[in-house]
């Protein structure tokens, strides 16, 4: 039953990645782009998990751990940078 479901799940995760990319390119403010990157890495985690199930062996398990940690650290670093930018919403960061 899992083998029947897997292609649809992988396709849906790929479509979600595409929607994240659209928001990443369009996003009117810098926070929108950071949010799109945050969602992008979370969905990429799910896609790697689905691909590991499809391949039948958890080759990418360490990759999942590394993406989870580095994505979180990157999001918090970008949010702290935006928090400390002087000049309010007129600051030239996007």
């Amino acid at each position, binding site marked *: 039953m899992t083998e029947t479901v897997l292609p*649809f799940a992988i396709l849906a995760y790929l479509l979600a990645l595409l929607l994240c990319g659209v928001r990443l390119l369009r996003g009117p403010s810098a*926070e929108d782009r950071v*949010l799109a990157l945050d969602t992008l890495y*979370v*969905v990429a*985690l*799910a896609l790697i998990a689905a691909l590991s199930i499809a391949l039948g062996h958890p080759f990418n398990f360490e990759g999942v751990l590394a993406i989870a940690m580095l994505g979180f650290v990157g999001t918090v670093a970008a*949010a702290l940078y935006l928090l400390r930018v002087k000049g309010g919403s007129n600051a030239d960061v996007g």
Partner: protein
Amino acid sequence: MPMWADICVAVLLIVGALAALIGTWGMLRLPDFMTRLHAPTKAATLGAGCALAALALRFYFVEGGSSLRYLIPLGFVFVTAPVSAHMLARAWRARHPVTPKPDPAMPSASP
């Protein structure tokens, strides 16, 4: 792999894929940054959590129930997603401060 675990993995994959799709669709369509923040922090986190739970359940039975280490990224995502969303909301509020509007229902108390 028992039948019930197979069914659970399939249901988790479908629910997770639909949740991730709904979350990113909301992030694309909603009008304001705070509403755009609200959509993926719940739905996309649920989607990734369902996929990682499916991974944990699948390889728990494939490897003969030897270890629970596949639950590590699940717990990590569930702990860190609200923290990053909170940081983003704080950054947005710092750069776009709220200007309080006078309440028409209240009489002007200040002279």
